[in-house]
């Protein structure tokens, strides 16, 4: 999960022209907060109907797994089409099973809203308690929400006779690169009616310093 930075600069590493263009776009005006893992998917989102949102969400999840498993440099994340074939199988699973059914994981639905002073995240986690969820912000400003959904506490007899089960159980994790105008230390959260609400305070973005280099 640590390798999921949107763009990890390699010092003096040279980008090819396409990648360079994308990197510039990501960093300049088109940088959309909370878009890191769906950066490629966001282009698709425009084309794909909302009823296919599960597929788009699968992209999110699969990119995270893909990069974390193989430790690829993040330049690769931009290359949708080469990865698409790799994803094909799990995407099919997704369509058939509703949510991402690979590795027993699921993707909780979430809203992210933004107002003048803060960014708010709402994650649907019905049946979980406060202790089942962990929210962390790593040094490289990646917000990770993860946890595990366990089966209901039922009697042994009941557990043996499950008549209908539509719910996905298992572990989940969703990660986002925080935009620069968010104070990473200000994350606060509360849990109410099965919805985890996180608040991130906004701060004035730091203007990049310009350093003049004198050429003698």
């Amino acid at each position, binding site marked *: 999960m640590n390798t999921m930075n949107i763009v990890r600069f390699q010092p003096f590493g040279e980008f090819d022209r396409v990648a360079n263009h994308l990197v510039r776009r990501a960093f300049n005006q088109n940088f*959309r*907060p*909370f*878009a890191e893992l769906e950066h490629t998917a966001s282009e698709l989102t425009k084309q794909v109907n909302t*009823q296919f*949102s*599960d597929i788009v*969400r699968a992209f999110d999840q699969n990119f995270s797994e893909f990069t974390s498993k193989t430790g690829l440099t993040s330049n690769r994340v931009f290359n949708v089409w080469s990865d698409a074939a790799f994803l094909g199988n799990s995407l099919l699973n997704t369509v058939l099973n*509703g949510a991402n059914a690979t590795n027993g994981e699921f993707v909780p*639905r*979430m*809203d*992210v*809203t*933004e*107002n*003048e002073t803060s*960014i708010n995240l*709402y994650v*649907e*986690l*019905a*049946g*979980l*308690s406060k202790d089942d969820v962990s929210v962390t912000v790593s040094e490289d400003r990646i917000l990770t929400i993860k946890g595990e959904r366990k089966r*209901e506490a*039922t*009697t042994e*007899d*009941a*557990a043996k*006779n*499950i*008549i*209908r*089960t*539509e*719910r996905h159980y298992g572990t989940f994790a969703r990660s986002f690169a925080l935009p620069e105008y968010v104070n990473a230390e200000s994350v606060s959260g509360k*849990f109410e*009616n*099965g*919805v985890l609400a996180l608040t991130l305070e906004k701060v004035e973005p730091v203007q990049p310093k310009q350093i003049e280099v004198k050429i003698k």
Partner: protein
Amino acid sequence: MTATFKTPHFRTQWNVDTAACLMPRVNVADSDTELSVYVFLPGVTKEDVTVNVSDERVLTIKGEKKRGEQPEGLKFQRKERRFGAFKRQFYLPKHVSSENIGATFENGVLTVTLQKTQPKTTTVEIK
């Protein structure tokens, strides 16, 4: 046993995500004395859910999932949650009583508990 907890209108788990109104996911567990129905309703308050059983022994769980107040100037960066009316209906199996139905709501999970009845057998004496 599995056949006794059918949903009316042929709605099955396969179209939970594509139905016209919201169809919250449901688990049903069976024990010796009772049948527990778990309805997953994240973001719904207790007041917005109704549970009832009709004369035809159809259990209806319905209500509305409200988005709540949205202040002006609110921008959405991500919109994956769905809001609106929801409804699930089930035929009660024969061995379950349509009375003494218990319901609790905790952490966005509605648990409906149905009591099982002992099958009555009447022996007819042959004279």
